């Protein structure tokens, strides 16, 4: 049977595609100084925060949208978007979960994320972000005992202004590229994490992002600071309802690891990818950057990207401290008309810095996938090393897989090794599996899971199971 000739079957329904009917407060449509002031005002922000936003907005006016990426998209009208949308019931933030709008609780229950703490036996603290605001953070008491701050960004601005002031914008400054600067001007909420010196965070921290309202963009900002000798593992999950329009998601994530600290950041991204004809879906244009500020620090990114109409992001590490380590593990799967241009940047500045990149790309249907990465070893980064491996798997001849690595070695003590392969699932492997009683779909699932294993095993256990299932669902219908 020639699988290639067969048309791509309809993808299994996107099970997170429902909308929640809930009353919203929105900022007036469009992007201008008044809207920024509106956002800042409704969040009761101090003056310095408003100044930060306005500075970014001034700068944004001078910037042009970049267009070097592989997946092209129709021009976004930034004046035709709502930059703030929040459930009405959140205007005065409820003090406890009991006061939370039952509709919201219902939504998260449907998504499989019960916010009631007693229901959570596996001990993951969750911060749930609904459209523009954080609706609930669980396990606060337990975390406070260790001195860990885990709360929404708005709360952090109110309660911990010193920390926010000190670190916000240090990794992604307001003078960065277009989407990052846009975020700096209009960001609404997100998570804030601070792990004090010497503390090993006793549980996984997690944020769940949900876009609900239409014609809105979601601009969240996450800031994670791991003080000296601390450790934290952070998870992020995302979904959105099915809509015909394209929605913009431009988040900024900043990680800062001080001396001997370690941050592990995992993402399972499953935004609505659009229908099988490529209509609708989320534009996921996210800026994620980690700074290994202290010596012996470590930042590790793990991502499973299965959703979004267009994914365009490069979680990066700036290895500034001596002996610091950066890691990037990625699985990106595109099906139907999805497009992805993703990869990482490893900037080596300190001595004895090490980085490792493992990227697995799978494209099926009419999709297009690009790995784009930069490894830059500075002349002062003595004795540094990088290892990069990026493998692509193609299913069918209507899709594309591309690899564009940039390699810059300015230091003669340092080593860079890069490997990339592109192939398809071999007939022999399929035959072997089928012969032992698997149907073609199961066989492909098994082989793909094997292909992704190196990355999947980096994920925390609870997520790994979910991600494994997601990989299977995303590829459903791509073999005939």
């Amino acid at each position, binding site marked *: 049977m020639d699988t*290639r000739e067969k048309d791509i079957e309809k993808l299994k329904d996107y099970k997170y595609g429902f909308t929640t009917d809930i009353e919203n407060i929105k900022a007036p449509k469009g992007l201008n100084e008044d809207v920024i002031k509106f956002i800042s005002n409704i969040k009761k922000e101090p003056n310095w925060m408003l100044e930060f936003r306005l500075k970014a907005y001034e700068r944004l006016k001078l910037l042009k949208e970049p267009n*070097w990426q592989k997946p092209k998209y129709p021009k976004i009208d930034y004046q035709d978007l709502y930059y703030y949308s929040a459930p009405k019931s959140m205007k005065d933030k409820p003090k406890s979960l009991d006061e939370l709008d039952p509709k919201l609780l219902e939504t998260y229950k449907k998504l499989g994320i019960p916010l009631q703490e007693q229901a959570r036996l596996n001990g993951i603290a969750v911060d749930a972000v609904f459209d523009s605001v954080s609706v609930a953070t669980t396990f606060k008491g337990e975390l406070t005992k260790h001195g860990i701050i885990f709360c929404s960004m708005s709360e952090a601005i109110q309660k911990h202004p010193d920390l926010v002031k000190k670190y916000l914008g240090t990794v992604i400054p307001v003078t960065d590229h277009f989407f990052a600067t846009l975020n700096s001007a209009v960001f609404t909420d997100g998570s804030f994490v601070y792990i004090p010196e010497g503390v090993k965070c006793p549980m996984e921290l997690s944020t769940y992002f949900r876009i609900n309202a239409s014609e809105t963009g979601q601009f969240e900002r996450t800031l994670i600071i791991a003080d000296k000798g601390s450790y934290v593992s952070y998870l992020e999950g995302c979904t959105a309802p099915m809509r015909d329009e394209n929605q913009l998601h431009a988040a900024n994530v900043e990680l800062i690891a001080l001396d001997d600290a370690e941050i592990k950041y995992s993402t399972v991204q499953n935004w609505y990818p659009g229908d099988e004809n490529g209509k609708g879906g989320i534009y996921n244009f996210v800026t994620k950057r980690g700074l290994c500020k202290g010596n012996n620090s470590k930042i590790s990114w793990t991502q499973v990207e299965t959703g979004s109409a267009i994914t365009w992001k490069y979680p990066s590490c700036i290895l500034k401290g001596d002996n610091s380590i950066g890691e990037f593990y990625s699985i990106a799967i595109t099906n139907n008309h999805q497009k992805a241009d993703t990869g990482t940047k490893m900037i080596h500045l300190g001595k004895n810095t090490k980085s490792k990149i493992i990227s697995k790309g799978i494209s099926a249907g009419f999709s297009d996938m690009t790995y784009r990465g930069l490894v830059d070893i500075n*002349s002062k980064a003595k004795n540094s090393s990088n290892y990069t491996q990026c493998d*692509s798997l*193609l*299913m*069918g*001849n*209507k*899709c*594309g*897989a*591309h*690899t*564009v*690595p*940039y*390699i*810059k*070695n*300015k*230091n*003669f*003590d*340092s*080593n*860079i*090794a*890069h*490997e*990339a*392969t*592109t*192939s*398809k699932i071999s007939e022999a492997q399929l035959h072997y599996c089928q012969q032992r009683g698997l149907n073609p779909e199961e066989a492909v699932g098994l082989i793909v899971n094997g292909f992704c294993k190196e990355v999947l095993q980096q994920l925390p256990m609870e997520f790994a199971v979910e991600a494994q299932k997601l990989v299977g669902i995303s590829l459903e219908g791509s073999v005939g």
Partner: protein
Amino acid sequence: MSEQLQSDFDKLVKTSKFSNEEIQFKKNFLNNFIKKGFPNRKQEDWKFLDISQIIKKNISNLSYFNDYSQSNKIDPSIFVDGLEHNKIIFINGRIEKIDFNFEDQNKIEIIDETKKDISFDYENSLIDLNSAFTDKVFKILIKKNYSLKKPLIVYHSINDEIKSTNINLRLDFELGENSCLKLIDYFSNNTAKNFINIFYNFNLEKNSILKNYKIDKFINNNLKYSLNNIEQDNNSVSETFILSAGSDYFKNEINCNLNGEYSSAFINGIFSLKENQQHEIRTTINHLVENTKSYQLVKSVLGKNTKSAYQGRIFVNSKAQKTDGYQLSKAILLDETSEFNAKPELEIYADDVKCSHGSASGSLDENSIFYLMSRGLNYQQSKELLINGFLMDVVEKITDVEIKNLITNIIGLKQ
């Protein structure tokens, strides 16, 4: 710059024997170039080494006019010894001699192609510059079923009579069915600072074989750019070897279209750079039909203040199933100030393909040096031996034994 270009072009028109039609044709290219200017780092293809900056720094004022009506004296001392060969001699961008003495004259034809338009889409403004200022363009046609008995050496030399600081030259080759050409580009050691812009077109018909060896060995201060555009029909083979070692700046660009089934392209390159040199190889292999193959190997040895860049691109069309593409670049950095950049790129639209690339860079392996020293070699000898082996790997890929020996001697490697 545009005034200089315009006035130099007028001088060229005055002294040359171009027909009115040809002048009009060239004028279009001149206008294109004036519009575009030199490429710079804002263009992706010129990201690593910005030619407009390099020209500005090395040759402040470029002048373009060369008097093609006057012939130059050929200095026979530049000829390669110990290898019988046919010759094409360029002096200051003017063809002084085309000599196919070893061949059957009926099998080779030389055709004036001055008016032939560029057959492919391009953005590169250096092609415009080249087309505006070249002398007469000739096509060497090798007829069906004829293999040249001896290699053809193209000498690129400059003498003191030169008036301009920019030299443009172009040659077209057509290899008929079952024909074979071995072509060596030989750059002599002229030390004046000129910007040399070379453009070759190859058309390979069925079953033909092209072997092109570019040898830039002797230290000189020239800045060079060379573009090979290769079109390949069924079963044709192209082999390109680049020794990039002599000039201050040298960018070799190979654009190869595998249009016919079972056609294959091989590109092997060596960068051996010493003080302040900046060299680049950029390749684009377009696999357009089924069952095509490409293989690329580029190795760099980088000394003080040097910079090398390798941009290799493999493109596989959705029709080009069963493509086999391979690309490997390796670099040894010998000094704190040396720099290696690479951008090995794969763009693939077919699923039944085997494509891979690898890139590695670093310093000489201390363990290997220790091993050799423990067997009685001194540090310098061990280093040389390791580099010798590293580069010999590329030279071994040359399929013509006679030329392999010649190149081994020119580089000074030991077998």
